[in-house]
């Protein structure tokens, strides 16, 4: 492109423009036939304020100055004029004139608007440029963004790029190392090659080098291309119960959120609960709990709940960063995440753990059975949270929620819409269907798929939503992980791992509490560098087969990893906390130090809850 640019002055000029150069080259190429050149004599006006805005102009040679009404004359920024043609304005807001004459490249309005319709970033930047001209050449935000964040962003970029370089180096070295060591580990050639692929996949996850589903695709592609395991084994994730259940639940969740049902539920809860600080907090908390099985993403629940936190602060007229505001922040955040391991459908990575279970264990831990098995931990988590928050946030001043405002919000939503009824119907059918599996003999994954089918059939879930709102990359990620585990089993590598870790297996079987402590330590160390999902996936992939080989219930080990994997101490460790920070305008509403102190305490509570659940699991015959 640079070569071309050197040959063609028009192309060179388009690419030299800092805003237009952001557009795709294909779109720029489409624009090229519409361009023309225009000459301006010295002192000639290009347009005056109030003239029809017919084109955007780029200076090829000469000069051009702009004068906003009542403002000072300024040189055309980046040699560009006529940004009004890129906007809804019909006429020019400034006047443009050349002092010494100019040659201009003219971009006519109609093709320009068509070109910009698919280019949101250049369009926004052109608008900002026009605003800057009208403001006299500078915007307040320019200084802030240049001074404050510029340095920090540069530093962050540098640190990130060093991490990426180390990560890719490790991705190259890890498989090479495995291939060298494989003969010493008595691995068959195909098992050694698969382990090399697996190691590269894990390193890509650990260093967060690419989107999390891409390493899985890499593993599937290379394993199948080399013929290391049969195709049905490697692609078993695509036909697994977990995949179908996850896809269907994601579809149902899309309808729940897009129909506005989740928002209506939240308002109803706030309207009906007693008007005291305890119940305000409980309202946010229980709304989060209610959304937990229905919205299978903690980030999604944080995004749904945080606006209510902000509304509640305003409605209750609470002072920012006051203890009451802090407690509400904690209730919002905890509501979104505390019970995420308790329901199978509350977090995408839960489906990964489900997919790693054997067929008979999947049958044993379907949705309702999962809930039953985790209810001991749920009770412990809730109890310890209420005690800790009661002690931590004692003696809060009284404040009252404006019920009329909530009622007004509800009345604005009007009556339940068809899509909301469809979402209610879907949830009720799913719950009832799961509870009565023994009567109708349809397993939950097929039941969920039937509900998804119904939603598609009735148009409650549109084709566009099905395509765009369902997290297809996650489903590929899930299929990849299940396929990887199946391949590990097929090649006997899990057995080998279990044989190599006899001490760990002995500890798991002989002293489960000690194993939990060891696991918590491992997770604490790993989580310093590795994101939540990757930590859970890697540890579950390693430890669940070891558990099975040593006669320990793999679901229990997977569940403990799910609970403890959510522990975090520093904001960078938790993507949904970073999102919460952003949604609360960088913690403008609450005291972050106090919030983080409570979070540290919560980590201890999670560990305590796991220990408290052990008698429950023993009583259920799992341990």
């Amino acid at each position, binding site marked *: 492109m640079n070569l071309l640019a050197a040959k063609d002055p028009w192309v060179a000029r388009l690419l030299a423009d800092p805003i237009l150069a952001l557009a795709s080259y294909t779109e720029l190429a489409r624009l090229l036939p519409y361009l023309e050149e225009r000459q301006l004599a010295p002192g000639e006006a290009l347009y005056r304020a109030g003239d029809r805005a017919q084109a955007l102009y780029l200076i090829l040679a000469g000069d051009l100055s702009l004068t906003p009404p009542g403002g000072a004359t300024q040189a055309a920024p980046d040699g560009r004029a006529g940004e009004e043609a890129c906007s809804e304005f019909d006429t020019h807001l400034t006047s443009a004139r050349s002092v010494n004459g100019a040659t201009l490249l003219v971009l006519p309005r109609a093709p320009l608007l068509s070109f910009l319709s698919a280019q949101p970033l250049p369009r926004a930047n052109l608008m900002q440029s026009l605003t800057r001209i009208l403001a006299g050449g500078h915007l307040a935000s320019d200084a802030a963004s240049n001074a404050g964040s510029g340095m920090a962003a540069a530093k962050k970029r540098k640190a990130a790029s060093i991490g990426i370089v180390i990560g890719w180096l490790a991705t190259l070295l890890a498989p090479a190392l495995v291939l060298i060591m494989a003969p010493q580990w008595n691995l068959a050639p195909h098992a050694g090659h698969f382990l090399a692929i697996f190691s590269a996949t894990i390193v890509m996850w650990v260093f967060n080098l690419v989107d999390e589903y891409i390493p899985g695709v890499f593993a599937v592609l290379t394993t199948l291309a080399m013929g290391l395991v049969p195709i049905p084994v490697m692609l078993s994730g695509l036909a697994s119960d977990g995949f179908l259940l996850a896809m269907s639940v994601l579809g149902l969740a899309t309808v729940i959120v897009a129909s506005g049902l989740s928002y209506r539920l939240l308002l109803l809860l706030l309207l009906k609960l007693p008007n005291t600080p305890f119940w305000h907090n409980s309202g946010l908390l229980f709304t989060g709990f209610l959304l937990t099985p229905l919205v299978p993403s903690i980030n999604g629940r944080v995004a749904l709940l945080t606006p209510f936190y902000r509304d509640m602060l305003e409605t209750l007229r609470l002072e920012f960063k006051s203890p009451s505001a802090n407690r509400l922040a904690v209730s919002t955040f905890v509501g979104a995440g505390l019970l995420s391991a308790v329901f199978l459908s509350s977090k995408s990575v839960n489906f990964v753990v489900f997919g790693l279970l054997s*067929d*008979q264990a999947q049958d044993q831990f379907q949705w309702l059975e999962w809930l039953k098995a985790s209810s001991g931990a749920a009770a412990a988590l809730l109890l310890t949270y209420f005690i800790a928050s009661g002690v931590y946030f004692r003696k809060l001043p009284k404040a009252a929620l404006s019920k009329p405002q909530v009622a007004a919000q509800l009345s604005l939503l009007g009556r339940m819409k068809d899509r909301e009824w469809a979402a209610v119907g879907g949830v009720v059918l799913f719950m009832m269907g799961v509870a009565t*599996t023994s009567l109708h003999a349809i397993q939950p994954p097929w039941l969920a798929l039937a509900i998804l089918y119904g939603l598609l059939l009735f148009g409650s879930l549109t084709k566009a939503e099905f395509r765009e709102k369902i997290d297809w990359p996650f489903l590929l990620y899930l299929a990849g992980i299940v396929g990887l585990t199946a391949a590990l089993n097929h090649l006997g590598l899990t057995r080998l791992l279990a044989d190599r870790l006899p001490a760990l297996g002995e500890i798991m079987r002989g002293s489960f509490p000690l194993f939990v402590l060891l696991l918590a330590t491992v997770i604490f160390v790993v989580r310093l560098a590795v994101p939540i999902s990757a930590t859970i996936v890697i540890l579950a992939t390693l430890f669940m087969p070891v558990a099975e080989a040593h006669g320990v219930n793999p679901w229990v080990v997977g569940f403990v990893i799910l609970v403890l994997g959510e522990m975090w101490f520093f904001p960078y460790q938790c993507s949904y906390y970073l999102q919460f920070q952003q949604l609360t305008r960088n913690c403008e509403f609450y005291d972050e130090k106090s919030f983080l102190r409570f979070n540290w305490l919560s980590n201890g509570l999670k560990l305590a809850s796991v220990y408290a659940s052990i008698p429950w699991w023993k009583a259920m015959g799992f341990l």
Partner: protein
Amino acid sequence: MNRLRLILISLFLAGSVLVIVAYNLHKPRVLVLHSYDLTYPWTREVDVGVRRALEDRSHFAVRWFYMDTKRHPWKEFRQKMGLSARQSIDRWKPDVIIAVDDDAQEFVTRHYVNHPDIRVVFAGVNGGVEPYGYVGAGNVTGILERKDLPALKQALLALQWQRPATGPLRVVHIGDTSSSVEHDDHHMREFDWRPLVSLPSRKSGTFDDWKKAVLEVQDKTDFIITTNYRKIRRGAASNALVPPAEVVAWTLANSRVPVVGTNGFFVEDGGELAIGTSPFEQGEVAARMAIKLIEGQAARDIPHASTRQFVVYMRSARLHRRGMELPPLYEAFARATNNDLP
């Protein structure tokens, strides 16, 4: 018009769901309940037999449950898995349970004797079925697993090797302390080995006991016969089991006399010759009995079957290297059944 469309779609959806539910409810359900797990070659091959028999019965709902008690032979684990299997059965309510090997009978299916809706087909039972209450039970039939001792005797007589001793050929059985080995040993004691001489068997709980037994019989026997060695603990105070391949490797390295297995997995674990009960037969016959039960035949009308087939497993190249020769028919049989390993 829109309302009519919605009604028609609803009818279509409801009809589809009704058909699915009705079909599922009438689908015959078969649970294949294994005592062991898929890392055990015997279990895998029983499954091959089951699948072979059921391949044209795609309208059956078939599920598998592996109790995994070979790797975890402790009583509390077996009880726990038994409970888990029973819960699974009570949830799914299969029409027929194909229960393979003794633990499945002891911890699960004996609780369903004379159950009005569930019928039981046993397989892989080494001993008698009396302990499980199957005698006279109206809902139980199955196939007993008996070592093909006549075939084994013939093979031992046919095996040519540099035998240091003279006189009648002597055999000794060495195994672990599991119940299946106990049952096998019982049958071996009752079997007429003539013209061979059977010496008192040795059973070992730990690896040290095993080593001692193997070394002690070297000058007293001409063959060691081994039935199973998967429940040998690393030490008296340890629950860790010695990997089967390690047991076999040590035994072959330290035994001057030929070691012959009575199960195919002996050769998979590194052994050189086994005359084994056919796991395929166990699975296939049990699955065919399950089909008969589902098709309306009463369990009491299907007599208990017993092993009729044996399979030869060998590593012929290694046997030759050690100067041991069997008639070519054995080698051809092993090769034809893909059981002549390198």
